[in-house]
């Protein structure tokens, strides 16, 4: 039995090393002045980090633009889904099946395919949907539907929305009041989880913004793309680590929140 466990720990150890090595290399490279020999030169050097924080306005502009391009679709998608949930909870529970089916389509119709199918339909047709920004926002809103649906739906189950609605009705509250003053505030964790997961997905998107926008939108990802194309150096490494840190923070936050929600559920069922 004990021997077996040793085998398992070896598997885990090897996995950790393999998974962490690329991250470490990128990190070390960022703190050097170059890496043309076995050891990186001038390690540790903070030259490029200083430059990143004090002399790279373009990078931070792009990060901000990325955030803007992510936040608007997330809001659109959330609002649409909350309104749908209102109808499902209050009047038409049967609608749930259809909404779920639709929301799961983006799992199969991934980024590239969805972007090009929207392009074929609307590009250059002169309609309101032909506007690239509207196109990008809409595709982004659609691509995150699986996360948004799951996040809200699970939370709705967890807070036992149906019972709340019935109780509120007995006490004389109107449907709209109950939903927006009682149910939605109780769903804030679900909304936050959905928003964070979606943010992680959109912030790292490159194909959609590239295909739909061409070179119109400068996001954090297109910035990294241009950097890698123009030259390969420790400076790029610092940008990459910075973008990674942003995504990682978001991912950790959503992971923690999800656990919190799960814990709450577990306590409730007790």
């Amino acid at each position, binding site marked *: 039995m004990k021997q*077996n*466990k040793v*085998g*398992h*720990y070896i598997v*885990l150890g090897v*996995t*950790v090393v393999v*998974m*962490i090595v*690329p*991250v470490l*290399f*990128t990190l070390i*490279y960022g703190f050097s002045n170059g*890496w043309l*020999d*076995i050891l990186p030169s001038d390690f540790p050097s903070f030259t490029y980090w200083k430059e990143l924080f004090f002399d790279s306005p373009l990078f931070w502009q792009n990060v901000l633009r990325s955030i803007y391009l992510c936040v608007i679709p997330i809001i659109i998608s959330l609002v*649409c*889904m909350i*309104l*749908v949930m*209102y*109808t499902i909870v209050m*009047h038409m529970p049967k*609608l749930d099946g259809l*909404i779920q089916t*639709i929301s799961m*389509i983006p*799992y*199969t*119709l991934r*980024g*590239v*395919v*969805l972007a*090009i*199918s*929207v392009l*074929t*339909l*609307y590009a250059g047709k002169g309609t309101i949907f032909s506007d690239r920004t509207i196109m990008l926002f*809409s595709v982004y*809103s*659609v691509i995150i539907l699986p996360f948004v649906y799951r996040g809200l739906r699970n939370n709705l189950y967890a807070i036992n929305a149906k019972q709340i609605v019935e109780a509120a009705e007995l006490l004389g509250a109107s449907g709209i009041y109950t939903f927006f003053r009682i149910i939605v505030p109780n769903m804030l964790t679900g909304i936050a989880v959905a928003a964070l997961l979606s943010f992680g997905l959109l912030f*790292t998107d*490159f*194909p959609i913004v590239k*295909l739909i926008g*061409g070179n119109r939108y400068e996001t954090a*990802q297109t910035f990294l793309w241009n950097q*890698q194309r123009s030259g*390969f150096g420790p400076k790029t490494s610092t940008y*990459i*680590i910075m*973008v*990674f840190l942003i995504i*990682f923070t978001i*991912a950790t936050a959503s*992971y923690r929140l999800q656990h919190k929600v799960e814990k709450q559920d577990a306590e409730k069922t007790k």
Partner: protein
Amino acid sequence: MHFLKKKLKSVLYLAPTIPFFILAIGFLILPFISMVRSSFTDPSSGAFSFVNYQTCFTKGAYVASIKNSLQVSCIATAVVMVASFFIALAVFSTGITTKKWFMPIMNISQNFAGFPLAFAFILMLGKQGFFRLLFNKLGSSLLDNYSLYSYEGIIPLYIWFGIPLCVLLLLPGFDAVHREWKEASTLLGCSSAGFWTRIGIPNVMPTILGTLSVVFADSITTYTTVYIIISSNAALLPIKIGTMFGGDLKARPEVGCALSVIMIMMILIVMVLCNIGKRISAKRGVSV
């Protein structure tokens, strides 16, 4: 009158769902239909035809991209599944404390995909990569035949970003294996390997198959990493599809649509096969 009122009411109830349906129909369903239609349209005459599919399956560059994509994704998926199974097994067998320190590491690597990953691999295994230098200094020729910029060479990247996703998806499946079963089978004289081949794996099978289809879909649609390492000329499906629409010289949207439909079909076939497998394993009475 009563009927009308009822009807009006249900229309009113549906009013809040309008924005959602505008979004879903306008940017999911209609585009998809138009893409399928366009894939069956002859670009010169506008009539219904299979000419685009014919092009996809006969012209060298397209055939190569289909073949390369399938090959890379299948090999990567197979390796990822086997490796992740043993990793998830190790996490499961060593208990809850492992999960606590191991999952954050998976979280790190999962979020390191795309640009960062491509960059790191170029740094390590590229033309002047660290390991190449190291092996040269040591006099080893291990990496001499390896090129990161080839279709075989990028498979390690696919494996690297596939593993964290796969482990994360597999772990819940292992929870279906009760520890008491293991104890009971040991008492009855079953070896550890015997337990896993006869009891453990059949029970985790539904999760394994579900995960397999996700991992396959994820690798076959990978864009960013390949785009950087092999460039926009890469003969791989997602990249080829992208160039059919880009500002490049040879924009051929109809062929791009046909390639997309082919890619979706591949994903769906794997998904359906996995679902059939799930049913069969459930029928054998091993589902919990």
